């Protein structure tokens, strides 16, 4: 039974602790499972530890003087806790980092080329590019302009497209909706959903915009203060009153005030 569960999870993160600069404990025993082919959301407010969780999985922690001090991460059954970032990309984990970060002085087309894995043939690369331009027709239109001058939405599309060139099996996105108009968020999330359906790509989506995220994922995790405080199906989370109050902007706030304080305290402890 245990084995069967393992086989279904493309990614399994168990009680991971991350230290920055050897002193700052940023996440404190986070466990997250991503079932193969599903879309999972990681929700939480500023400083909760969402980006740190993704960096632990992609191996980018090292670049920020962070390290995993406890716990383990397995990807498709292989322990990757200590693997180099580059190796993880080769294995099929790609992390679209916070804040878009396209290669500004390159054209969108060159941005895609830059991400080509070692040894990818020119014809495969061109086929990948065509597929990506198919998902994001706006990028195709502007493929030879300078990426730094694309609009925020186009840059986010490019950042996702660039990640897709690496042919990931697990795509992790760090707040792709940040600073984008609602219709653009909808467009980008729609495309993510389409890629997930068409190619069976597993997705781990970090969002503060819980409302939009819970519309497209099957399950969600809520992180507060470096710990997972809630985990459930998207439906369950959407109907949860805490989530409604803090993340979906709803709920009857008046007499819940006292109660939510105590609940919040429970998360923080």
């Amino acid at each position: 039974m245990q084995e069967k569960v393992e086989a279904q999870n493309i990614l399994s993160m168990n009680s991971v602790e991350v230290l920055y600069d050897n002193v700052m404990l940023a996440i404190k025993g986070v466990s997250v499972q991503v079932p193969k082919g599903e879309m999972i959301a990681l929700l939480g407010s500023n400083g909760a530890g969402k980006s740190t969780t993704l960096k632990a999985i992609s191996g980018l922690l090292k670049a920020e003087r962070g390290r995993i001090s406890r716990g383990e991460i397995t990807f498709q059954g292989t322990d990757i806790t200590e693997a180099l970032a580059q190796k993880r990309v080769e294995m099929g984990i790609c992390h679209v980092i916070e804040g878009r970060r396209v290669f500004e002085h390159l054209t969108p087309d060159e941005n895609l080329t830059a991400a080509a894995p070692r040894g990818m043939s020119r014809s495969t690369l061109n086929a990948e590019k065509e597929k990506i331009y198919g998902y994001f027709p706006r990028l195709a239109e502007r493929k030879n302009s300078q990426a730094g001058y694309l609009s925020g939405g186009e840059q986010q599309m490019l950042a996702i497209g660039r990640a897709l060139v690496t042919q990931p099996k697990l795509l992790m996105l760090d707040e792709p909706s940040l600073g984008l108009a609602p219709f653009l968020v909808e467009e980008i999330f729609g495309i993510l959903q389409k890629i997930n359906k068409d190619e069976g790509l597993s997705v781990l989506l970090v969002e503060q915009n819980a409302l939009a995220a819970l519309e497209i994922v099957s399950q969600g995790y809520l992180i507060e203060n470096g710990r997972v405080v809630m985990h459930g199906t998207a439906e369950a989370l959407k109907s949860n009153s805490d989530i409604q109050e803090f993340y979906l902007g709803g709920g009857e706030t008046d007499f819940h005030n006292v109660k939510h304080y105590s609940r919040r305290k429970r998360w923080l402890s």
Partner: protein
Amino acid sequence: MDWVFLSELAINGALTGLLYSLFAIGLVLIYKASSVPNLAQGGLTMVGAYVVLALARDVGLPLWLAIPLAAVVMLGLGFGIERVALRRLAGRPVVMILMLTLGLDIFLRGTTLAIWGGTSRSMELGVSYDPLFLGDIFISRIHLVGAGVALALFVAFMLFFRTRTGIKLRAIADDYMASWSVGIAVERGVGLSWALASVVAVAAGVIWGEIQGVDQALSLLLLKGLTVAVLGGLDSILGAVIAGIILGVVENVGADFLDPLVGGGSRELIVAAVLILTVMIRPHGLFGRHDIERV
């Protein structure tokens, strides 16, 4: 006004300027990948020249073989510098890397002094010193050859930066973190930029070694090379070429006007003025990349 003489000054200035460009291209290659002006580029150029001499004189190889072999040796040295010294500094402040390159320059000068001593040796490329006349204008052959090498390298690098590897290098120059995130081998890319700059140093070392002899003074080319690189914008190869021509012409023509007035030595003043004014008035140089700011 003697127009023939003035054009002679300008043309020879431009040729000398392209030799500065030859040196500056190495600086630009490293700046593009590490965002730091490599203060050891002069030292590398000097070592490049010494290695060619060692292979040609001490081992006895013909020059046509010694030069490419030296390029291979320097390629290895460039990769080695990244592997041994720079990799540890990843993520540290850029000023630390700058200090490291300064230390490296001193180290390289000391090493050549210990191995080959301080007496100047000649390169003996076999380029004729017979005057070459373009109409009435006298042109130095070795300068013409050097300018040709500079332009050839310029074209080669422009093409290189359109290849997949070249594009990855430019991506690294743009954003290390984003490069890591898509699996680009950032460290290897930085190593490659040092290796290429070391190969450029062989070309500059051979030409400048022929012109002024091979000794530790070759490393002082850094001052003019840096001025050219800064004027060109530090990260632009095209900028390095055009700025080299500009500095060469301004220096040569300017010195002819100023030297009688100040009694000689005005070349250094002109170079210093160009460097200082560029930094004050146009810090991005002529073709430097600005950080893109969208409104």
